[in-house]
């Protein structure tokens, strides 16, 4: 079945990995064994493959022995494949004429029994050599791309991305669902931790004043940014580099063509009505911290007094309850921490304490989380002002004739709490913005376990392959500064891509064989990337035309679902051909 007819010239290079491999395996006998395998013309060993010397040795081995493919027996391809591949290219081989037998991570390290590990290594090597014999050179490519970007969401993150992209010479379409730019930050009259506002190094970059106002103007006045307010993405198609987006605007539907996309749709607050024990929506004086924000803002131009919703009385006892709907294990809220709520609630508590030094302000928390520089000072200042921090869960906000009662515990004293309260403020957590799931389907991008858009990750290049990057709270809760930094990083990545004017087309992708394809469209229905389109070809035998599957090379993410689904075995992954898997299995068993 191994039909290579001696064509292949395989070199097997053992990397002893500074003794890691030789310590747990009988390398001598393995080398002897490999020498006897089909197509193997060279068996070598190097001390360290992953440095310059090692790669030079590999290059030399390839040249001296006229190798046309290489098996490296050493570490995991997940990390080292790219690097070793480059050495192949330097030696004039195709980067894909490489197979790695992962003897370190998946044989030596998890198996202490030297004899049995050596036995397993033989099988792994046999499979690797067999697969190597079946390898074929693969070629990627490049296709032209539009120098234009679509930015969804006009909060701090979306605006920053739009500015950076446009400054680099790209056309930008900024689509904002609301009637105005600014997003969540616009709703917050103060943000934290803003401590020691001086531009000489103490500035923490969190202030709405510095961060937001100039940005809105920067966006509105930019010659290359087109702002679509009150608008939403309707449809999205095409391929990476040449996408078509249909935008629903107040005046109708507009179609734009873009090369890349930034997702900056932010988050929304968990609805506290899902957690009935806090009495939100039942008791008027139970509010969220955004409601309180609105109350504070409303009070500023008036008498500067905070009036509680039920009777307009100025509250004298105020209870903040943290982690409402966050870090929830009951399934009614979200499991994650929403990151900004502790910071923000402390900020609001300070504002109230400043206005009403006699008021009693309590913050009920599980543990305080403020993963930001400046948070520590922010918190200490609050404590020094006399704000009471109580550790423990609040079990219920009850009400009787005299008003609200906060029932909970104070873990530090072990006491049960019953606090008669004038105003209860819920620090509600964040979840994915409404419409996130629908967007993920329209754009065919994945969500993470918490329902947010998945962040770019160098180990998982799916999103980079699509030129679609999620930034700011669309990728999970984070503060203003980090949302802005995200946007800058994403814009830099996309700018680099668009500046080149070309999209890389991966070499590892599905390929359809027109002859074998019956046109059943099974592949089209399972492809998660929408990479398969049916096209008409002439059928010479029957003198007519017929439909066959065609893979859009720049869009395929090489998942192999089509190959799996195709009843005619007409579509295959270029790097996981049936014959390669077959050879591996036969060698193993």
């Amino acid at each position, binding site marked *: 079945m191994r039909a290579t007819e001696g064509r292949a010239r395989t070199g097997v290079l053992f990397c002893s990995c500074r003794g890691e491999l030789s310590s747990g395996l009988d390398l001598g006998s393995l080398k002897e064994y490999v020498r006897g395998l089909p197509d193997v013309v060279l068996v070598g060993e190097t001390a360290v493959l992953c440095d310059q010397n090692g790669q030079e040795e590999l290059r030399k081995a390839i040249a001296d022995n006229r190798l046309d493919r290489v098996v490296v027996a050493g570490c*995991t*391809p*997940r*990390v080292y494949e790219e690097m070793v591949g480059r050495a192949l290219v330097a030696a004039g081989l195709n980067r894909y004429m490489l197979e790695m037998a*992962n003897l*370190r*991570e*998946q*044989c*030596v*390290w*998890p*198996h*202490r*029994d030297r004899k*049995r*590990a050596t*036995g*397993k290594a033989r*099988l*792994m090597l046999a*499979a690797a050599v067999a697969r190597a014999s079946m390898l074929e050179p693969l070629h990627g490519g490049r296709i032209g791309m539009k120098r234009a970007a679509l930015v969804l969401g006009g909060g701090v993150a979306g605006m920053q991305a739009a500015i950076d992209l446009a400054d680099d010479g790209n056309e930008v379409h900024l689509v904002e669902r609301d009637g105005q730019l600014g997003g969540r930050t616009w709703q917050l009259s103060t943000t934290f931790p803003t401590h020691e506002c001086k531009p000489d190094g103490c500035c923490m970059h969190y202030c709405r004043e510095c961060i937001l106002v100039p940005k809105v103007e920067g966006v509105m006045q930019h010659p290359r940014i087109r702002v679509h307010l009150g608008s939403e993405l309707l449809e999205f198609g095409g391929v990476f580099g040449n996408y078509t987006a249909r935008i629903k605007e107040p005046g109708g539907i507009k179609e734009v063509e873009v090369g890349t996309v930034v997702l900056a749709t932010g988050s929304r607050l968990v609805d506290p009505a899902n957690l009935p024990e806090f009495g939100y929506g039942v008791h008027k004086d139970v509010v969220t911290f955004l409601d309180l924000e609105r109350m504070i803002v409303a009070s500023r131009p008036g008498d500067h007094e905070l009036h509680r919703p039920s009777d307009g009385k100025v509250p004298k006892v105020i209870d903040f309850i943290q982690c409402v709907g966050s870090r929830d294990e009951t399934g009614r809220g979200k499991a994650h921490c929403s990151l900004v709520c502790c910071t923000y609630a402390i900020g609001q508590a300070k504002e109230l304490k400043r206005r009403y030094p006699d008021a009693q302000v309590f913050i009920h928390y599980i543990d305080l989380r403020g993963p930001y520089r400046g948070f520590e000072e922010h918190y200490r200042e609050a404590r020094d002002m006399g704000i009471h921090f109580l550790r423990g869960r609040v079990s219920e906000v009850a009400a009787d004739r005299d008003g609200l009662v906060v029932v909970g515990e104070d873990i530090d004293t072990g006491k049960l709490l019953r606090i008669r309260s004038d105003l209860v403020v819920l620090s509600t957590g964040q979840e994915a913005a409404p419409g996130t799931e629908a967007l993920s389907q329209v754009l*065919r991008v*994945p*969500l993470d*376990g918490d329902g947010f858009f998945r962040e770019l990750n160098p*180990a*998982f290049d*799916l999103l980079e392959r699509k030129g679609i990057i999620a930034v700011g709270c669309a990728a999970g809760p984070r503060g203003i500064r980090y949302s802005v930094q995200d946007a800058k990083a994403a814009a830099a990545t996309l700018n680099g891509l668009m500046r080149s004017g070309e999209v890389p087309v991966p070499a590892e992708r599905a390929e359809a064989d027109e002859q074998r394809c019956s046109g059943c469209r099974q592949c089209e229905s*399972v492809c*998660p*990337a929408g990479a398969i389109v049916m096209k008409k070809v002439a059928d010479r035998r029957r003198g007519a035309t017929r439909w066959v599957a065609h893979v859009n090379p720049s869009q395929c*993410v*090489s*998942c*192999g*679902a089509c*190959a*799996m689904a195709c009843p005619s075995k007409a579509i295959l*992954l270029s*790097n*996981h051909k*049936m014959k390669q*898997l*077959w050879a*591996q*299995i*036969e060698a*193993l*068993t």
Partner: protein
Amino acid sequence: MTGFEPKIVGFLCNWCTYTGADLAGVSRFQYPPNFIPIRVMCSGAVDPMYVVKALVEGADGVLIGGCNPGDCHYQSGNYKARRRATILKQLLKDLGLDERRLWVRWISASEGKKFAETVTEFTEELRRLGPSRFREEWAL
């Protein structure tokens, strides 16, 4: 059945279980060397023919390892794999194979320990079941 060492072929998703297996190694979690990995792009790319082929060729057990539900790098490959495996198990049963010889498990890139435990359990189960006679029965 003393001394019988089963042979397990594993089709491991590149993004999760294969990386989880790497992590098991990096963390030096030990598991029996009865398991031999084959890296695939996604559990949804594992053709039932590969599984049948491995079993006919003499594997005593086959493990398909993919990402946790909701975590597939390609969104739904693992759901496809699960659906297919259910049908495949029924078929294999009809062909006379004990369905306990095919395991489908979701193991993420961070679950090195779970990977090691899974392989250990599977090996023990196969030791109990004894050698597969599928190869002799279906040798053509």
